[in-house]
């Protein structure tokens, strides 16, 4: 990628699958995912970096895909909402959103799930306050957030151990 140009060859791994495409320099990652690869789970709400509906994980970092160019992701590993379920089985977080009625229209849900996935990877035992901060960049117009927080709490390790932080005495790593 040394040469300046209006289009670039890009190879990325999306949800475990390698794909190579020629992308226009002006193409946003969200359009690459939706229009070029047909992965329409990633939504566009605002297109200004405010709503978080387009959140995906690039090289382990949660980002808003309307705020980066596809050309910037050459060589990257990308995770989208389509990669959460394995062999038709929902991830525990997806299952929990379903159980806790954490969505109504569902428009924000892909972004919420990616933010919550990122949060729990980095902080498996978040407090409610940390959960709220973790989804700060994701706007939901329907639910009022309460059930979303509940759904995330339910799959955190804190909840799984009866509301207490896991202790070494309980036989698990802290």
């Amino acid at each position, binding site marked *: 990628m040394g040469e*300046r140009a209006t289009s670039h060859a890009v190879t990325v791994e999306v949800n475990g699958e390698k794909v190579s495409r020629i992308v226009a320099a002006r193409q946003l990652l969200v359009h690459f995912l939706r229009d070029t690869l047909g992965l329409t789970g990633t939504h566009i709400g605002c297109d200004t*970096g405010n709503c978080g509906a387009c959140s995906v994980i690039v090289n382990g*970092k949660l980002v808003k895909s309307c705020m980066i160019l596809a050309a910037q992701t050459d060589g990257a590993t990308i995770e989208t909402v389509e990669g959460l379920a394995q062999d038709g089985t929902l991830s525990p977080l997806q299952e929990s959103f379903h159980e806790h009625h954490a969505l109504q229209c569902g428009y924000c849900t892909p972004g919420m799930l990616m*933010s919550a996935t990122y949060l729990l990877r980095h902080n498996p035992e978040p407090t409610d306050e940390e959960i709220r901060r973790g989804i700060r960049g994701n706007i939901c117009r329907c639910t009022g957030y309460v059930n979303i927080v509940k759904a995330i709490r339910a799959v955190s390790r804190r909840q799984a151990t009866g509301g207490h932080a896991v202790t070494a005495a309980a036989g698990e790593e802290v």
Partner: protein
Amino acid sequence: MLLEQVEYVRPQSLDEALEILANDDGAAPLAGGQSLTNVLKNRVASVDVLVDISALGDLAGITRTADGGLSIGACVTYDELDRSAEVRQSHWMLGEVAAHIEDQQIRNKGTIGGNCCLSDPTNNLPPILVALDAVMELRSRSGRRSVEAADFFKGYFATALEPGELLVSITVPQMPERSGAGYASLAVGADAKAMVRAAARVTLDRDHATIVDSRVVLARVAHVPTRDAEAEARLNGADATDDAVRAACAGVADGMQPITDVHGSSEYRRQMAKVMARRAVDQAIAAARGGRNGSSAGGN
């Protein structure tokens, strides 16, 4: 949204980036892209080529300088500042300010260099950098120079950067002994854009009783982060007590003309500037006493 036609390049070295920037008036550095992408969407600036500096080694990383300060690469992200043990150890408040910028997605991409080079008056980092006496290290094809943070911000979206120049790193000197920093914002919502901010730094005497040196920096009161030299003069030599700080901050922002907008009038902002300055100085004093360089209180 479809952007205007633009070229993209990811230079392999700082020299290559500086060469492209020197040769093309329409070249723009792309750091975290958390502002520039929106600028391109809105088509308020016309860019020929985006020069992706985000992966350049010369602009990455946080290192301890020989005299105990920090050298922070321009492309260090807010998340990296927040999580840096070096930053937290010597300049706790800088990490804390970064931790409260907007949201996790923006903190994972936005850079300290971009936050300064944009010179948006609502951006969080410029006032604290001015309060910490930071120095901006600039490079161009023809050389390098250092500009104090207080002189770097020139106006709305305007800085001391010349065409073809890049901000490469920011040097934050070690804080004197018995110093602390504070930061207080009147925000429209938690972690949201602020209507008025103040950043402060104080150094106390041996007994922790008297203020011997201070910085009081106001943001969103003028177009750029502005030191209130009169308030600093009143604080220097004053007792480090609530009453003395309150008295010293009573005249903060007098004579300044903050904007009036949907969130508040000019007069309201001027009054709130006094309150934010007092809170920031109180935090700084508590931090100096606690010996943790600004760790007494959080806050956006």
